[in-house]
C-alpha cells in the first residue's frame, strides 16, 4: 500500500473511538482529508484506526462538539521511538561513551612484537621504538607511519640489515634481519684474469698466475691479463690467478647544462594546519587561513583512524606550510662548464668502483645553445680492470 509508505518515519498512532456509529466519525475525518488505515470495528460502539501523527490535531478538532470519545492506544514510529530513547539519558550517554572508548582504544598501540632478531638487538629496537614514542598505550596518530619507522630504525641500528613493520590493528609486528658477517667464500676453482674494459696498463700486482701483459701495454676488453695455467707445456697446472691490474681508461660523457639555475630555499618560517578528513571532505580544526608567504612549500601527512582493526573514513590531515624563496642565478659559460664537469664526474663515480681515480678531464666540445651549454667531456681514469674467468677443467 503506497499511502502508508514512510509512516514509520513520520510516526503514527492508533485511535480508538467510542460512541454511537463510530464509523461515522471516521467518515467525517476522511472528508476533512485525514488519512486513515487499518480501520477495525471492535464492537458496536467502538472502532479503531491508524492515523498519522500530523493529523492528530485535526482529529481532535473534528471531535469537538461531538459525543465521541477518543483515546490513543499505540504510538509507533521513529519520533516516538526517539523521544523514548532520549528519556533514557543514562543509556544514551553510556552508549556514546562506549563508542568513544572503542574508538580511542582502537587507536592505541597495544602490543609490539619483534621477530627474527637476537634478544640483544631486540632490546635495542625496543629502546629505539620507545624513543620514537612507539610503546604500549601510545596514541597511534602521534607516531610515524611504519615505513618512516623502518627507515629510522635502519639508520639508528647499524646491525640491522632489513626490518619490516606491519601494522595490524593495534599490534605492530616487526620482522628484522640482522647483518651477519659472512666470511668471504674462498673459491678453490682455477681462474684466469681478463680485462673488463680497454685501457693502458699503468700498474700491476700479480699474486698468483702468469702475467701475460706488461706496464704500458694497451689491452682490449676481453684480453687475457693473467693466465691461471702455470708450468711447462706438457705439465700444465691450473691455479687460481689473483692480482690487480691498474689501467688508464677513458670515458666520454655528453651533457647539457642550463645557464641559469633556480634555487628553492626555505626561510624557516612555517605554519601547521590540522584538519579532519571525513570521507574526502576536509574540516579544518586548527590553523586557519593561509599565511601570507610568497611561495609555499607544502608537506601533507595523513593519519587514518581505526575502529577495531578497520580503517574508518576519518583521518587527521596535517599540513606543514613552509615559506619558500626562489633564487635565480645566471652563470657564465665557464661556470656552466665547471658545473658540467662536476656533474659528469659525479655520474661517472656512481658507475665506477670506489677505488677508481680521476686523472684528468678535458672539454672536447662546448657550445652555447638556447640558454644551455652542450658539453662533450673526456675523462681519464685509473682503475682496476680485472675480471675473472674460470678455467674449465677438462679442456
Amino acid at each position, binding site marked *: 500500500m503506497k499511502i502508508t509508505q514512510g509512516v514509520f518515519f513520520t510516526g503514527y498512532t492508533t485511535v480508538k473511538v467510542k460512541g454511537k456509529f463510530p*464509523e461515522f466519525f471516521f467518515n467525517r475525518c476522511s472528508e476533512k482529508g485525514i488519512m*486513515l488505515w487499518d*480501520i*477495525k470495528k471492535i464492537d458496536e460502539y467502538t472502532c479503531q484506526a491508524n492515523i498519522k501523527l500530523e493529523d492528530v490535531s485535526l482529529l481532535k478538532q473534528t471531535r469537538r462538539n461531538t459525543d465521541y470519545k477518543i483515546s490513543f492506544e499505540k504510538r509507533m514510529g521513529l519520533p516516538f521511538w526517539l523521544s523514548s530513547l532520549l528519556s533514557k539519558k543514562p543509556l544514551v550517554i553510556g552508549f556514546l561513551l562506549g563508542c568513544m572508548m572503542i574508538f580511542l582504544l582502537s587507536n592505541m598501540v597495544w602490543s609490539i612484537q619483534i621477530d627474527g632478531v637476537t634478544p640483544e638487538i631486540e632490546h635495542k629496537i625496543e629502546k629505539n621504538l620507545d624513543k620514537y614514542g612507539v610503546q604500549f598505550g601510545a596514541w597511534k596518530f602521534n607516531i610515524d607511519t611504519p615505513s618512516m619507522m623502518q627507515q629510522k630504525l635502519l639508520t639508528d641500528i647499524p646491525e640491522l640489515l632489513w626490518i619490516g613493520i606491519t601494522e595490524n590493528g593495534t599490534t605492530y609486528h616487526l620482522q628484522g634481519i640482522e647483518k651477519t658477517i659472512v666470511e668471504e667464500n674462498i673459491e678453490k676453482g682455477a681462474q684466469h684474469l681478463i680485462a673488463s674494459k680497454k685501457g693502458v696498463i699503468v700498474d700491476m700486482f700479480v699474486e698468483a698466475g702468469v702475467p701475460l701483459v706488461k706496464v704500458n701495454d694497451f689491452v682490449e676488453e676481453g684480453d687475457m691479463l693473467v693466465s691461471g695455467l702455470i708450468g711447462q707445456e706438457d705439465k700444465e697446472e691450473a691455479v687460481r690467478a689473483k692480482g690487480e691490474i691498474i689501467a688508464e681508461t677513458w670515458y666520454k660523457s655528453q651533457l647539457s647544462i642550463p645557464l641559469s639555475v633556480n634555487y628553492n630555499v626555505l626561510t624557516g618560517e612555517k605554519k601547521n594546519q590540522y584538519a579532519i578528513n571525513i570521507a574526502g571532505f576536509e574540516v579544518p580544526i586548527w590553523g586557519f587561513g593561509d599565511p601570507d608567504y610568497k611561495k609555499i612549500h607544502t608537506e601533507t601527512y595523513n593519519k587514518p583512524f581505526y575502529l577495531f582493526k578497520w580503517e574508518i573514513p576519518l583521518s587527521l590531515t596535517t599540513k606543514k606550510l613552509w615559506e619558500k624563496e626562489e633564487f635565480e642565478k645566471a652563470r657564465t659559460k665557464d661556470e656552466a662548464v665547471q658545473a658540467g664537469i662536476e656533474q659528469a664526474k659525479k655520474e661517472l663515480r656512481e658507475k665506477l668502483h670506489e677505488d677508481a681515480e680521476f686523472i684528468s678531464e678535458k672539454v672536447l666540445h662546448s657550445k652555447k645553445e638556447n640558454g644551455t651549454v652542450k658539453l662533450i667531456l673526456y675523462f681519464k681514469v685509473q682503475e682496476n680492470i680485472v675480471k675473472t674467468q674460470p678455467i674449465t677443467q677438462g679442456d
Partner: protein
Amino acid sequence: MKTWQQRFGNWLAQHLDLPTDVILELPRITTIGQIHAYIENHKGLLQFSEHEIRLKLNQGQLRIKGKGFVLRMMLPEEILVEGTIEEVTFLQENS
C-alpha cells in the same frame, strides 16, 4: 428524470469511448478475488461492521456483505476493504 448533463455524458461515453466512471461520476468497484474490494468515487461511509459495509453513492447505496472486514485504507473518495467478500449489492434509493 435525467438531467441534460447525464444524457450528454451517456452520449459521450458511448460514442467517444471515454471511461464511464469518470464521466458519469459512478463508483468504480474493483475486487481481487474475495479478499479485497477497492471502491472509488463513493460519497461517504454510512455503516461499517465486521460483516457489512454500506457506502453512499451518487444515486443509492452500495452494500458489501462478508466476514472479517477491515478498512485497509480510507481516503475521501476511496476505500479499500479487506476480508472475505460474499455479496455486493446496489440498493436503489427508495424515494
